[in-house]
């Protein structure tokens, strides 16, 4: 039913140098954004919760590199990676994490509600599965208006057990809407392994319940993800309807925050094994091997990004707090 990973990744050989570099840069941007956010949180400088994306970078980078600016995405509680990859600026993202009025939500939303309508980022979401039908609605609007943009909805393995996912998938299928369903299967829903929340090995097999094609990709291989996404997006854009991509991936940090020492829900070996296939290491090795980029070029991406992040954090810290007098701002329109 679902194409196997091998099938999809075989084609991963044939992408341009430009795309490889693009994928690399998106991933580095996510990695550094998240690592710094984690440090700030551990230093007690950020309020609220952080669900960090480190480890899963290839998915956001691979999918977003296949999208246009006017394509829409809906995201999850673990949304920073999607936002960064979709082009949301570091400044407004950090400022939001700091609760500053210059933030992406004017300090009102925090980590779980980061959005940027100018970038087609229709928001992270604190409710598991809730973004799925919203993406279906965005795709509906595109078709209704005669535009050819598509909508992509990201969700975890755990999220496929909630009703909104099921309803949204069936709705997209029966209406034949341009939606790409991207399951980031990191093997866990919080602290429950996939085997504890569903009997299937491959979430992609759920697509058949909606008459939707699906593909499984190596979620640590940004190129493989990019190719699968490009295909699914092309299908959707040309009116062939929705499709599901399952990307097998892993999160390095805890469900929330950076380190989780409380409950050994996964082994050190498991973590180490996944890290040995780090998505950024993989693409760098490949880029250097095939001459797409030199080591110094790659290092430069890290350096530039680090500088940009340092600047953005300084900007956030220097930004004013919201004024409590404006508590009722934006509750209603008009």
């Amino acid at each position, binding site marked *: 039913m679902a194409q196997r990973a091998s099938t999809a990744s075989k084609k991963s050989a044939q992408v341009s140098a430009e795309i490889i570099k693009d994928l690399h840069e998106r991933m580095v941007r996510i990695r550094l954004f998240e690592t710094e956010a984690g440090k700030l949180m551990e230093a007690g400088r950020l309020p609220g919760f952080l669900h960090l994306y480190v480890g899963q970078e290839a998915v956001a980078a691979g999918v977003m590199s296949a999208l246009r600016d006017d394509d829409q995405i809906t995201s999850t509680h673990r949304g920073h990676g999607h936002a960064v990859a979709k082009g949301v600026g570091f400044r407004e993202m950090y400022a939001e994490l700091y609760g500053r009025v210059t933030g992406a939500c004017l300090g009102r939303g925090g980590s779980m509600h980061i959005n940027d309508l100018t970038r087609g980022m229709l928001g992270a979401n604190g409710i598991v599965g809730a973004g799925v039908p919203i993406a279906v609605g965005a795709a509906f609007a595109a078709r209704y*208006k005669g535009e050819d943009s598509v909508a992509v909805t990201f969700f975890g393995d755990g999220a496929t057990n909630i009703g909104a996912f099921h309803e949204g998938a069936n709705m997209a299928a029966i209406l034949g809407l341009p939606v790409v369903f991207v399951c980031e299967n990191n093997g866990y829903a919080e602290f429950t392994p996939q085997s504890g929340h569903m009997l299937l090995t491959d979430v992609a097999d759920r697509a058949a319940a909606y008459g939707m094609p699906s593909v499984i990709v190596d979620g640590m291989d940004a190129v493989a993800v990019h190719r699968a996404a490009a295909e699914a997006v092309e299908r959707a854009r040309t009116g062939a309807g929705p499709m599901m991509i399952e990307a097998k991936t892993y999160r390095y940090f805890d469900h929330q925050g950076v380190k989780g020492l409380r409950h050994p829900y996964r082994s050190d070996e498991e973590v180490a094994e996944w890290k040995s296939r780090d998505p950024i290491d993989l693409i760098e090795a490949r880029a250097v091997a095939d001459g797409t980029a030199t080591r110094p070029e790659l290092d430069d991406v890290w350096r530039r990004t680090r500088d940009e992040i340092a600047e953005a954090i300084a900007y956030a810290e220097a930004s004013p707090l919201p004024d409590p007098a404006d508590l009722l701002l934006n509750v*209603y329109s008009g």
Partner: protein
Amino acid sequence: MTTTTEAPAVATRKLTYVKAFNEGLAQAMREDDNVFVAGEDVAGYGGVFRMFDNLLDEFGPRRMIDTPISEAALVGLGVGAAARGLRPVVDLMFMDFIGVCLDQIVNQAAKMKYMFGGALSVPLTITTASGAGLGAAAQHSQSLEAWLAHVPGLKVVMPCDAYTAKGLTVSAIRDDNPVVVMLNKVLLGSTGEVPEEIYGIPLGRAHTARQGSDVTVIALGRMVGEALAAADELSAEGVEIEVIDPRTVQPLDTETMFASVRRTHRVLVVHEAVTFGGLGAEIAAQIQDAVFDYLDAPVLRIGAPFSPVPFSPVLEKAYVPDRARIAQGCRRLLERS
């Protein structure tokens, strides 16, 4: 787009409540191509209450969408489409079904603008049929406006007759916020004068349906008609009651209520929902706070007893407030000095 055309003064013909709704919706669809309707059996069948009769013929399948039984996805579809600039009208058939999709209404539609720092609007209209009286029992008869009115970001309207069914629906669709239009099932076939042209009734403004000097009765939805009937009965006894129809329960026009109570000194609030935690509580709390010194008696609330809606008509009749209970409440208020 939050301007509302004020209603024309002269009505020209009688229409049923459901046809008035339907006409308002159709005119709003003609006015703005961004308006579409989605729901279960709204297109081909025209809605189980005939709310959407003939709309498929006029607007076609692009704008009239039949969906699977998936209310969470249905409302979500509306949220996403509204976020992208359309003005969806999403139908929930029975209000009792909001339990399966409240997250999309409350955590998504209502909060999105706020959480996103004002980056967008969610001009979503949700239509639904509420209320008891058809022997539809506990899961098909509820009036749950108190839940929705407690949610910042939502607006809620409760048309009491054909005229308001049309005008409030038009305003709901034109409004840039998520608005829930609670039609009343028992009123669907009731008739009233309705202007032919499109008109909006301003949201958040109460209407004094009858003037009187002795008691103010604030009535929601179908209870407006019951209150007017009670008023006739009381008038024969020499008691003149003023009947206020809030029309919109969120935002709530309390100023009109306060002004009335300052004149009558006595007030009764009546709704179909169970009394405990119903909107009568909010209205009573605000009135006693704002015009305490004008009150000659405590604010009296009439609502359903604290039980699910019973099936048997003999019980259902005893359950739902009516003109007799309203009249009796007014008399009790007047006995109190």
